[in-house]
C-alpha cells in the first residue's frame, strides 16, 4: 500500500521505534517565545544540561508585546519580566532571538515562513498550538507543552505516539467574497471542535491547491480548532515559488536538490487515511461564529441554530444572543484584524483594497496589527498604511495583540468584536469580550458598515486569500 505524505515525512524523522507504540521523532526546527519557554530553560538549569542543538532554535517575542511604541520600555511589568527573561535566556544559551527592535520580529508563525525557515518535509514544533500553520508548506508542525519544549531543547527529539491520518478534500470554486478563513471555519462547523482529535489532517482538492501560501497558512493554522494535532498541504509550485529568495531559503543547486525532494512529498494514490471528508467549495458561504468555540459557526446570512444542551445555552448567554435569530444587521463595536491566522501582507492588501476611498463607521474601534516587522515594512512600502489611515484605521506594530489580550490590547467587557483571529472562547480577547470570528474581507466590510452584513453583497469577485 502507498503512503500518505504525512507518513513519508514522519517516517523520515524516526530515530527509533520503542516499545509501547512510542516513537522518538527528530525535530528539525524549534520556535520559542516568551510565554511557554521560561520554565523549560529553568528545567535545563535545574538538571544542569546544555541545549543539544542551539542552531535549530529560533526565538521571538510576540505574545506579550505592546503594539504601540515598541521602542519604549514595556509598561506592563509582568510582560516586561517575561520578555526580559527570554532575552536573558537566549543570551545565556546562545539562541538567535528576533526580539523587539529586530527587523525580523513578529508572530512566531508569521516569521518562520516569511524568513524561509519553514520548508517542506520538516518537523517543526513550538510551545504554541497554532504551530500547525507551518503545515501549509508540507511540514509536520504541531504545538507542544512546556515539558516537551524542554525535551526538544535537551535532545532535539520528542517521544510520541503516531497520530492517525485524516484527509479533507475540497473541490470546486469558491463563491465570490469567500476566502480561506471561511473554508476552515466551515470545516470546523461541520466537524466540531473535537472532530479532528488524535489526527493529523491533510487538506487536498482543487479549492486548496488553487490557494496562495498565505491562504493555505490560514487553513492549516486553525486545524487545532477542530482538535487536530496539525494540518498540512502537499508542497507544489506555489510553495516553491514562495520559498525562493527568502532570507534562509536554499538557493542554486541546493534549492534544486531540495525541490526534487519536496516533489516526492505527496500522498500516494493508494494511501490509506483513517478518516476522509469531502466538501464542495461552492457550498461554502462567508462564515461567522456566534458562540464561544470555533465550531459554533454559521453562514453569515443564516440563523443561530437551536440546541438544548446546557453548554450551548451557556454559550449563547455569554454572547447575549438568541437561538433562531439572525446576526445580520447586528451593530458591532470592535474590529480586530491580526493574529497568526490573518495578519500577513496578503490579508492587509485585501483589507486595504476594500477600504480604499471609504470611511470606517464612527462607532467602530478598529485595530489592525501586522504579523511581523517585515509585513509592517512591506505595508508601508506599498502605501497600505496610508490607505488604512485615510479610511480611519491605524496600522499598529506587530504581535499577538487582541487575539488573546496578554498585552494592553483588550476588547471591553460585554462588547462585540468581529475578529480575524482563531478563537472565540469566553474572555479570550479580554474578560467579558464577545468575539465573532470572520475573514479579513468580512472584517473590513463590517468595519465600514458598522454592523454585520453579507460579504457577498459588497464584492463582485472571488478572493484568492
Amino acid at each position: 500500500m502507498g503512503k500518505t505524505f504525512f507518513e513519508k515525512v514522519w517516517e523520515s524523522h524516526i530515530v527509533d521505534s520503542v516499545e509501547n507504540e512510542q516513537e522518538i521523532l527528530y525535530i528539525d526546527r524549534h520556535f520559542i517565545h516568551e510565554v511557554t519557554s521560561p520554565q523549560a530553560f529553568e528545567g535545563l538549569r535545574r538538571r544542569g544540561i546544555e541545549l543539544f542543538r542551539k542552531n535549530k532554535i529560533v526565538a521571538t517575542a510576540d505574545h506579550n508585546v505592546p503594539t504601540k511604541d515598541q521602542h519604549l520600555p514595556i509598561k506592563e511589568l509582568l510582560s516586561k519580566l517575561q520578555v526580559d527573561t527570554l532575552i536573558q535566556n537566549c543570551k545565556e544559551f546562545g539562541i538567535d532571538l528576533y526580539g523587539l527592535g529586530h527587523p525580523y520580529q513578529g508572530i512566531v508563525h508569521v516569521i518562520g515562513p516569511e524568513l524561509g525557515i519553514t520548508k517542506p518535509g520538516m518537523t517543526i514544533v513550538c510551545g504554541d498550538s497554532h504551530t500547525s500553520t507551518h503545515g501549509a508548506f508540507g511540514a509536520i508542525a504541531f504545538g507542544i507543552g512546556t515539558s516537551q519544549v524542554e525535551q526538544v531543547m535537551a535532545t532535539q527529539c520528542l517521544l510520541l505516539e503516531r497520530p492517525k491520518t485524516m484527509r479533507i478534500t475540497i473541490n470546486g470554486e469558491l463563491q465570490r467574497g469567500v476566502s480561506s478563513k471561511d473554508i476552515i471555519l466551515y470545516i470546523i462547523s461541520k466537524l466540531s471542535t473535537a472532530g479532528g482529535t488524535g489526527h493529523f489532517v491533510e487538506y487536498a482538492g482543487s479549492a486548496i491547491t488553487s490557494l496562495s501560501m498565505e491562504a493555505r497558512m490560514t487553513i492549516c493554522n486553525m486545524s487545532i480548532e477542530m482538535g487536530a494535532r496539525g494540518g498540512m498541504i502537499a508542497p507544489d509550485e506555489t510553495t516553491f515559488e514562495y520559498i525562493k529568495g527568502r532570507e534562509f531559503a536554499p538557493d542554486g543547486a541546493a534549492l534544486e536538490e531540495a525541490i526534487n525532494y519536496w516533489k516526492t512529498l505527496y500522498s500516494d494514490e493508494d494511501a490509506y487515511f483513517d478518516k476522509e471528508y469531502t466538501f464542495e467549495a461552492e457550498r461554502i458561504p462567508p462564515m461567522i461564529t456566534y458562540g464561544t468555540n470555533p465550531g459554533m459557526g454559521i453562514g453569515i446570512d443564516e440563523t443561530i441554530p437551536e440546541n438544548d444542551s446546557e453548554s450551548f445555552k451557556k454559550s449563547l448567554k455569554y454572547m447575549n444572543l438568541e437561538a433562531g435569530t439572525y446576526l445580520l444587521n447586528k451593530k458591532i463595536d470592535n474590529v480586530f484584524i491580526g493574529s497568526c491566522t490573518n495578519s500577513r501582507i496578503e490579508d492587509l492588501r485585501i483589507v486595504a483594497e476594500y477600504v480604499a476611498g471609504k470611511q470606517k463607521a464612527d462607532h467602530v474601534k478598529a485595530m489592525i496589527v501586522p504579523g511581523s516587522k517585515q509585513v509592517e515594512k512591506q505595508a508601508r512600502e506599498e502605501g497600505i498604511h496610508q490607505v488604512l489611515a485615510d479610511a480611519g484605521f491605524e496600522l499598529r506594530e506587530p504581535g499577538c495583540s487582541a487575539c488573546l489580550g496578554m498585552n494592553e490590547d483588550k476588547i471591553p467587557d460585554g462588547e462585540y468584536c468581529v475578529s480575524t483571529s482563531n478563537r472565540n472562547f469566553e474572555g479570550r480577547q479580554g474578560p467579558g469580550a464577545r468575539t465573532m470570528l470572520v475573514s479579513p474581507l468580512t472584517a473590513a466590510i463590517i468595519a465600514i458598515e458598522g454592523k454585520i452584513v453579507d460579504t457577498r453583497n459588497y464584492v463582485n469577485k472571488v478572493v484568492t486569500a
Partner: protein
Amino acid sequence: MEKFKTLTSTVIPLANEDIDTDQIIPARFLKSTTREGFGNNLFRDWRYDSQGDLKEDFILNDPSYSGSILVTGKNFGCGSSREHAAWALYDFGFRAVVSSYFADIFKGNALNNGLLPVQVSDAFLETIFELVKQDKNTTLKIELIDQQISIPGTNHKEKYNINAYKKTCLLNGYDDIDYLISKKSQIEQFEQTHKEF
C-alpha cells in the same frame, strides 16, 4: 514528577462541555516564569467576578464539594497548548480529571505533570454526575495498575485506556526527558544520515 498508583477521593463535578484552556487559566495569567502558583487563577473568570469577588454559584466556590478529582464534560482542555492549564489544576490540588473526551495536547501535558486524565464512556460520565447530584460525598476510586475507575459502594466500574509507556512513567514518577537523554548517542547517530532540505 510524583508517582500515581491509586486515588480515592470525592469529586468536583463541572458538567460543561468543550472547556478550553483559556477558561482553565486565562492568557493574562500566564506571565509567571515559574511553574508554581497557577492554582490561584484556575478557572479565574468563572470563580471571580470583575471586582475579584468570589462567584458563589460556581462549583469550585461551593464548600460542600471537595476532592482531588475533577469530573467534567467532553472535550476537556481544547484550545491553546499552554501547559499552565495542567499546572493550574495540579497546583489547585487535582490529581485526576475524568471526562468522556480529552483534547490531545492537554492530555499529553497532564500526563507529563502527574495529573491523570481518565477517559470514560458517556454513560459512565453521566452516572457519576447523577450519583454526585444525589450525594455530594460520592467517591471515585481510580486505579492505575488495573486501569480501572469505580464508584465504591456501587457496582459501577469501567476500564480506561492509557498509553503503556505513559502508565509506566506515572507509576514510577519518570519524565520523558530522562528517557530521551539516555538515547543521546542514538540521536547523534541519526543526525549523521538525516538530511534537512
